[in-house]
C-alpha cells in the first residue's frame, strides 16, 4: 500500500496558473488573427501590417517591463538566476496583458502610444503590486483608462493609412446624440452600417475602420469566451450576467424613450461591452470568489457602464467601470463569502436586490437628468 508522505492537498486538479494563461493567450491570439484577416480583406496589407506591429510592440513593451522588474527584484539578495528568468517567459505571463491591451486599442493608434500605455499598465497595474495574481486592479483596464485620459484627446494617430474610414465610430456617433435616437435615424444608422448581423460579424467598413482592433467581430469574441469557459480559464457568470444586465437596462430605458427592440441590441453590439465582458470581466484575479459575488459584481459593473455611457462626456465606460468595481471586490467578498450554501434564498434575494437597485438607479437617473 502506498502512503502519501507529503502534507495535504493530495488530490490536485489540472488547472494551473500557466494553463489559464496559455488558454487566455490562445483565445486572444484567435481574436487577433481574426481581426487581422478581417482588416486585410477589407482594407489591404498596410492596415493589417500596422495591427501586427501594434501587437508586437505591446508584447515587447510588456516583456521589457517584466525583465526590468525581475532584475530589480534580484538586487536585494543578488540571486539572479537565468533559468528562473527564462521560465517566466514560457508561461506567457509577460505578453498576455500587452496582447489584450493592443486588441482593445484603436487601430489607428500610434506605436508610441501603444508602448507607453502597455508600460504603464504592466508597471502601475500589475508589477508594482507584486506581479500576476497579486494585482488589485485589472491591468488591461488600467491601461485603457490611461489611454483614454492621456492619448484620447491628442491627434497622435497614424495619418498615412489611406484606406481607413475617417468617419466617427458608431459608438462616438451615438454618444454625440446622447444615446437618444428616434426610430427613423436609428433605422438609417443601422442600414448605413450594414444591419445588426453585420455588427455582430464585424464585416462592415464603418465598424472595422477606426474602432478598436479586437472589437470588430463579436462572433470571434463569443467563440473565444466559449473556448475559455470550456478550458476552465474563465467563469461564464460574470460575462453573461454583465451583458444581460446591460441589455435589460438598455431595454427598459429604450421603452421609456419609445425605442424598440433594436435599442438594447445596438447598446451591446457597439463599443467594448462584449470585449470587456470576455477579456476584462472574466479575469479570475480581480473579480470576487464565489458565484453570488460574481453576479453582484457583474450587475454593478453593468450599472456603472450604463451610467458612464448615458451621463458623462466619455464615449465608453467599460474600462472605467471595471476599475471602479475592482475596488469593491474585497467588500463584496467580505459580504458574500460567509453565507453558507444552504441559504439559497438569501443568495437569490441579495442578487435580486442588487439588480433592482442598479436598474432603478440607471434608468431613473438618466430620465431625470436627460
Amino acid at each position, binding site marked *: 500500500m502506498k502512503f502519501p508522505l507529503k502534507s495535504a492537498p493530495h488530490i490536485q486538479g489540472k488547472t494551473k496558473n500557466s494553463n489559464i494563461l496559455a488558454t487566455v493567450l490562445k483565445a486572444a491570439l484567435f481574436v487577433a488573427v481574426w481581426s487581422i484577416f478581417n482588416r486585410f480583406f477589407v482594407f489591404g496589407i498596410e492596415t493589417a501590417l500596422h495591427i501586427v506591429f501594434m501587437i508586437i510592440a505591446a508584447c515587447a513593451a510588456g516583456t521589457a517591463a517584466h525583465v526590468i522588474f525581475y532584475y*530589480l527584484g534580484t*538586487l*536585494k539578495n543578488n540571486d539572479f538566476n537565468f533559468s528562473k528568468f527564462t521560465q517566466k517567459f514560457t508561461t506567457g505571463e509577460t505578453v498576455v496583458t500587452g496582447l489584450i491591451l493592443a486588441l482593445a486599442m484603436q487601430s489607428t493608434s500610434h506605436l*508610441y502610444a501603444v508602448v*507607453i500605455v502597455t508600460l504603464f499598465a504592466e508597471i*502601475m497595474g500589475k508589477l*508594482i503590486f507584486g506581479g500576476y495574481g497579486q494585482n488589485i486592479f485589472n491591468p488591461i483596464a488600467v491601461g485603457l483608462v*490611461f489611454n483614454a*485620459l*492621456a*492619448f484620447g*484627446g*491628442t*491627434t*497622435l494617430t497614424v495619418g498615412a493609412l489611406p484606406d481607413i474610414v475617417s468617419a466617427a465610430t458608431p459608438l462616438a456617433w451615438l454618444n454625440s446624440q446622447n444615446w437618444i435616437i428616434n426610430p427613423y435615424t436609428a433605422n438609417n444608422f443601422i442600414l448605413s452600417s450594414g444591419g445588426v448581423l453585420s455588427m455582430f460579424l464585424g464585416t462592415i467598413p464603418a465598424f472595422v475602420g477606426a474602432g478598436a482592433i479586437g472589437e470588430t467581430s463579436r462572433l470571434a469574441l463569443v467563440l473565444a469566451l466559449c473556448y475559455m469557459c470550456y478550458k476552465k480559464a474563465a467563469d461564464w457568470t460574470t460575462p453573461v450576467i454583465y451583458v444581460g444586465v446591460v441589455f435589460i437596462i438598455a431595454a427598459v430605458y429604450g421603452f421609456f424613450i419609445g425605442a424598440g427592440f433594436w435599442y438594447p441590441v445596438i447598446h451591446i453590439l457597439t463599443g467594448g461591452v462584449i470585449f470587456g465582458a470576455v477579456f476584462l470581466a472574466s479575469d479570475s484575479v480581480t473579480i470576487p470568489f464565489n458565484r453570488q459575488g460574481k453576479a453582484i459584481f457583474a450587475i454593478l459593473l453593468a450599472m456603472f457602464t450604463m451610467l458612464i455611457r448615458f451621463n458623462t462626456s466619455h464615449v465608453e465606460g467599460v474600462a472605467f467601470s471595471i476599475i471602479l468595481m475592482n475596488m469593491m471586490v474585497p467588500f463584496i467578498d467580505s459580504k458574500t463569502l460567509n453565507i453558507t450554501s444552504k441559504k439559497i434564498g438569501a443568495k437569490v434575494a441579495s442578487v435580486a436586490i442588487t439588480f433592482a437597485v442598479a436598474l432603478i438607479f440607471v434608468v431613473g437617473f438618466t430620465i431625470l437628468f436627460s
Partner: protein
Amino acid sequence: MSNQVSPTETVNVPTTKYNYKALLTDGILKENPVFKYMLALCPALAITSNTFNSFGLGIITLIVLVTTNTAISIIGRFVPNEIRIPIYITVIAVAVTIMEMLTHAFMPALFSALGLFIALVVSNCLVLGRAEAFASKNSVVASFCDGLGNGLGFLFAMIVLGFFRELLGTGAIDFDGIFGFRLFPQEYAIPLFIQPMGAFATLGVIVGITASVSILKNHKKTQKKGA
C-alpha cells in the same frame, strides 16, 4: 514675598550637543519631509505642474521655515504651554504675509501663478511641525540649521516633482525663460502628467523608489554585519 519666582518658571536652557551637519543634510535625502514623512503634500501635489512655480513655492517655504524656526526657538521657552499653537501660528502668519507681499511686489508673475498657495503656507504642516517638534525645544542655531535642512529637502522634492511632471506632460522644460530645453516633440507628450492624477502617480512612484532604495541599503548593511 511678592517677587518670589515659582519653581515651574525656571528657564531650562538645553545643553545638548548638536550634530549641525546632520541637521543640515538629513532633511534633503535621508529624512526628506515629502518623500519620507509625507508632510506638506498639498502644495507638493497641487503646484508642481511646472518647474518654475514649484521652485518658487519651495523657496518661499524655505525662507518662512528658517525665519519661523529661528523666531520660535527664541520665544519658545517663554510661551505658556496652553496657548503655544496660536502663538506659533501667529508668528508663521507674520512671516508668510511678509513673503506674500514681497512676492507680490517683486515677482508679480509668480504671485499670480501661485495665487492662494502662498497664503496657504501658513497651514503647511511642515512649518508648524518643525516649530512644534524641534524649534520650541532646541537652541537657536540648531533650529536655524533644522529649518534650513528641512526647507532644502522640501525645495528638492518640489523641484524633482515639478521637473518630471513638466517633462512628461509637455516634453520640455521652460524655467521662466532663464533656461529650457525640449526633450521630445509636443505631440508625443502625455498631458495626463500635468493633471492632478499625474501628480499622484509621480509622487507615488518617487516615494516607492526612495523607500525601496532605503530598504535595499539597510538590507545590505545588515548582511555585511551578519557576515
